């Protein structure tokens, strides 16, 4: 058994675990012997972030310092990661804005005036004016918005420039302004190891012509996990795209990463092991659980969303993309990775209220599947946390609810297309091309608040390696039967019942793991035998589930 302090085993003395089920918190009694994986405590943040930024810019990795790349009259594009990460959005000042301010200071000193700032959204919804202001900071916002600070538009007629094909035939087309620049400076915030590196430009500023080569089911199937570039076909393809971009345009990459301090007081206790709560924290947790049961959905979501996360910056690096990303990944793993011995037959994934694709909106059914079979499944290195053919139990209401403005194409995808086939390959071949060119939805992406019509397909593909690996998914707490059915999931009224169902197809004395996410955590699974449960059930009835 692993002895890492973030891995605990349920004993007869353990209290119920409190886990997310959308925007509710529910108490579950788990069988004795169940392994619970908690996030590591937050790493200590940098003492002087602005000094770290200045140091990174003048001591870059595998590159000349930024000031040495500047000359008067040159054309510079600053690309900035969008708000899909971190989750929830970080407290002001956002690190991306601090980086941009330091960069702009240098550009001003070197008389660079032709500057535009592009939010690298790819096919995500556009960031709103307020969100952009929060990300870049009020000073930069005031100076550049809206004429020289805007969202990437992958559908703007004449707005994309074709750069060429990679050696393996990937068409690379990027934002025209970026392509015609003398220098692209990328300000990134890596929150999970899938992001950053060549993905920043290779996804953020491209369009359908390029995305279709790597955002497809075959690529995701060929990725053991997309959170480890070494075994990710997605990363391999993005690397080739990025290398081609870097060969055509000078790119200076700035990457940052933050710790996992997701909850500020008074919600900080949510990060802790339930057995280690102080009496005051325990009362606070119980009160929160009860309050969430009473409050209407919008109020519940507001409790979590309105409080920005007090993430602390733990690293800043600048220079050549790959050299920079190597350092970022190291730090990111240091924060997130919890060593775990052996896979489990049954894994419980609590599905929270938020994902990278629903900031300011409800986590719709398709995004529930992205979390279950996509993100949470992939948040593992070495091997998946669940055994091949094993069972995943998720907790979420799976309400048939979609944000009309952000996720309009999702509604049609979910109800008209996914009901015809769940086969990602068939979806890709039969439906994706036409749907992605739907002029109405493209208009919503361009002038509304919508995700691109290709996005719901990508969301389904994002769970493709999980879908191939996991035997069954059982939902606990669903408020209806048909949404889970469309997703291919079974339902159970309580956690006990879900565990009973899961045991039917598991070996005797199955190993059970609760992946106690939120804050962010990732496992590093090494071969070995995870302990089986010591008793068939905990002997206690679930309170909430």
């Amino acid at each position, binding site marked *: 058994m692993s002895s890492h302090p973030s891995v605990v085993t349920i004993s007869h003395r353990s209290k119920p675990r409190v886990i997310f089920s959308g925007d509710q918190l529910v108490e579950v009694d788990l069988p004795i012997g169940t392994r619970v994986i908690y996030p590591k405590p937050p790493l200590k943040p940098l003492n002087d972030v602005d000094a770290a930024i200045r140091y990174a810019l003048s001591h870059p990795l595998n590159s000349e310092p930024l000031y040495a790349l500047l000359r008067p009259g040159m054309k510079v594009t600053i690309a900035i990661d969008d708000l899909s990460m971190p989750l929830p959005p970080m407290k002001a000042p956002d690190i991306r804005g601090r980086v941009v301010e330091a960069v702009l200071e240098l550009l001003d000193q070197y008389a660079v005036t032709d500057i535009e700032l592009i939010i690298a959204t790819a096919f995500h919804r556009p960031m709103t004016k307020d969100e*952009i202001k929060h990300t870049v900071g009020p000073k930069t916002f005031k100076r550049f918005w809206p004429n020289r600070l805007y969202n990437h538009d992958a559908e703007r007629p004449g707005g994309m420039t074709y750069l060429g094909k990679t050696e393996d035939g990937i068409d690379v087309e990027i934002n025209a302004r970026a392509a015609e620049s003398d220098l692209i400076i990328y300000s990134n915030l890596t929150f999970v190891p899938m992001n950053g590196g060549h993905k920043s430009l290779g996804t953020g500023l491209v369009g359908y012509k390029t995305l279709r080569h790597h955002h497809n089911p075959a690529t995701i199937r060929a990725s053991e996990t997309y959170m480890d570039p070494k075994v990710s076909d997605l990363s391999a393809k993005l690397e080739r795209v990025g290398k081609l971009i870097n060969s055509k345009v000078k790119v200076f990459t700035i990457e940052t990463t933050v710790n996992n301090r997701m909850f500020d007081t008074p919600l900080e206790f949510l990060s802790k092991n339930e057995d280690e709560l102080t009496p005051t924290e325990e009362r606070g947790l119980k009160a929160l659980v009860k309050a969430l049961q009473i409050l209407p959905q919008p109020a519940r979501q507001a409790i979590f969303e309105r409080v920005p996360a007090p993430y602390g910056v733990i690293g800043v690096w600048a220079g050549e993309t790959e050299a920079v990303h190597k350092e970022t990944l190291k730090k990111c793993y240091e924060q997130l990775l919890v060593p775990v011995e052996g896979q489990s037959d049954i894994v419980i994934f609590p599905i929270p209220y938020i994902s990278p694709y629903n900031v300011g909106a409800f986590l719709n059914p398709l995004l529930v599947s992205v979390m279950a079979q996509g993100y949470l499944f992939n948040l593992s290195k070495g091997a998946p946390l669940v055994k091949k053919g094993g069972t995943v139990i998720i907790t979420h209401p799976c309400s048939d609810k979609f944000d009309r403005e952000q996720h309009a194409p999702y509604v049609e995808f979910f109800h008209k297309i996914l009901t015809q086939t769940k086969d990602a390959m068939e979806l890709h071949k039969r439906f994706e091309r036409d749907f992605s060119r739907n*002029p*109405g939805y493209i208009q919503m992406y361009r*002038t509304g608040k919508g995700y691109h019509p290709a996005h719901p397909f990508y969301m389904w593909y994002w769970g493709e390696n999980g879908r191939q690996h996991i035997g069954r998914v059982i939902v606990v707490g669903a408020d209806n039967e048909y949404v889970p059915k469309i997703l291919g999931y079974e339902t159970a009224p309580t956690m006990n019942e879900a565990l009973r169902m899961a045991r039917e197809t598991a070996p005797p004395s199955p190993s059970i793991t609760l992946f106690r996410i939120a804050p962010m955590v990732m496992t590093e699974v090494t071969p070995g035998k995870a302990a089986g449960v010591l008793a068939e059930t905990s002997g206690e009835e679930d309170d909430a589930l």
Partner: protein
Amino acid sequence: MRAAYFDVDGTLVRTNLIQPTVMYFANSQTPWETFKRIGGALLDGPRMALAELQDRRLFNEALFSHFKGMSEDRLVELSREVFQSVVKPNLFRGATDLILKTQDAGMRVVLITGSLDVTMFHLADHLNVPRADIIANRLEMKDGYATGKLMRPVVAGPGKAQLIVDDARGHGHDLALCQGYSDSYSDVPMLSVVGHPYCVHPDSKLRQLAHAYNWPILDIDTPARGMLGRP
């Protein structure tokens, strides 16, 4: 092949039927004729308002009856000016791109509108839509002069739905795959016959319906992706 049926007034352009009509009347052959036409239309206002409440077709017929006696030559001649000075400046910012994206998606664009065909020809030319793909109202002409009647079928309200069904049948389109775009509750029949209805800047009644049926709502007049500095 699929088709996308676009209402025009309020959907692609912010004008309605009245503004181009006033422009035509204001440029009648003599000031007296201008006075007669505009004055007549104003006096007819209450009847038209009542007709609008009752049936959009009746309103169209009432409005276009004031063209009686206008020569076809003059109408054709004025139509370019009406388009340039009234319609084109009022095109919604994203209208041209929306049509372009529709054509890029391999769809046939059809403009279906209560406006007069002579004006719509210029809009079609501007949007690279074949003139044959316009379903618009046509004034009846006798000896080169408008009789004040509309030729059948009148393009308005529920009638648009049947015209779309007929057009789709004639061109071999599967209506379940076709799209419809409109701003007005009066076009619900038209939006209901296609498989993919879209509401563009909908009026309040259409917005309510769109929410109930999860019909997508489009805003085509906002700068794309916050790019105010760009066309």
